[in-house]
C-alpha cells in the first residue's frame, strides 16, 4: 500500500476509533478545539472594537430642522428621523419652552421607547426599561447605557438638531 494511503488509513482509524476510550478522547478534543476557536472569535471581536475606536473619525452631523416651536403641545411628542433616515428619534416638549430629544432605540435590545406622560419618563415596553427625560439616564430595567441624546438648537421658531451625544 502506498505510504500516503497508509497514512490516511491510520488517520481515520484514529479519529473513528473502535476503542471507547479513544472515541471519548476524540470527542473531548473536538470540543476543546471548538472552544479555543470560540476564544479566538471573542478576541477578534475585541480587536474589531479596538480598530473601530482607532479608525473612527469625528462624525460630521448635518443640521436638520426637526420641528417648529409650538408645533406640539406641552407633554406631547413628535417622532422624527436623525441623523439618517431610518434612525428614529423622539422629541418631547417638557415645558412651555423646553424641548428634549432622544434616539428612540432602547439601548437594551433596540425596541422603540415611548413617552409616559403619567410618570414623566421614557419607557421601553419590551423589558420595562425606563429612561429619565432630563438626561436619558437609566432609571430601571435591563438597559445599561443611557439613551443617546439629540442636541437641539433653537433658532427663532425652528428647532434644529445639530448632533447626537454620545457619538454613534
Amino acid at each position, binding site marked *: 500500500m502506498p505510504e500516503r494511503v497508509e497514512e490516511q488509513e491510520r488517520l481515520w482509524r484514529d479519529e473513528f476509533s473502535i476503542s471507547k476510550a479513544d472515541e471519548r478522547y476524540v470527542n473531548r478534543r473536538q470540543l476543546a478545539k471548538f472552544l479555543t476557536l470560540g476564544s*479566538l472569535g*471573542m478576541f477578534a471581536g475585541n480587536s474589531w472594537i*479596538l480598530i473601530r475606536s482607532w479608525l473612527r473619525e469625528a462624525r460630521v452631523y448635518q443640521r436638520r430642522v426637526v420641528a417648529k416651536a409650538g408645533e406640539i403641545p406641552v407633554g406631547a411628542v413628535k417622532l422624527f428621523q436623525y441623523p439618517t433616515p431610518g434612525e428614529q428619534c423622539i422629541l418631547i416638549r417638557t415645558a412651555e419652552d423646553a424641548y428634549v430629544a432622544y434616539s428612540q432605540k432602547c439601548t437594551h435590545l433596540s425596541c422603540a421607547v415611548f413617552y409616559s406622560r403619567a410618570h414623566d419618563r421614557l419607557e421601553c415596553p419590551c423589558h420595562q426599561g425606563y429612561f429619565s427625560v432630563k438626561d436619558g439616564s437609566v432609571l430601571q430595567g435591563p438597559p*445599561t*447605557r443611557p439613551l443617546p441624546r439629540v442636541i437641539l438648537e433653537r433658532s427663532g421658531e425652528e428647532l434644529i438638531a445639530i448632533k447626537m451625544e454620545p457619538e454613534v
Partner: protein
Amino acid sequence: MAPRSSPRKFLQQRRGLTAIDAITALIVVLLVVQIWLLSATLDAYLAGHAETALPGAIVSGVLCAACIGMYGFVRRVDRDSRPNR
C-alpha cells in the same frame, strides 16, 4: 500464550483523558470570562467610552493565548501517550 498488553495501553489512554477533561474545563472558564469582557467592552464603546477598548483587547488577547496554549498542551499529551499515532 501471548501476554496481555491491553491494560497498559488503556491506562495511558486514561491519562490523556484526565488531562483533556481538565483542560476543557479550564478553557470553558476562560471563555466565559472572555464573553463577559467582550460584552462589557462593547457596551462601554457604544456608550461613548472608547478608552476601554485597548485594555479589553489586551486582556482578551492574553486569555485567548492561554486557551491556545492549553489546547497545544493537550495535543502534546496526546502525542506523548500514543507515540505511534
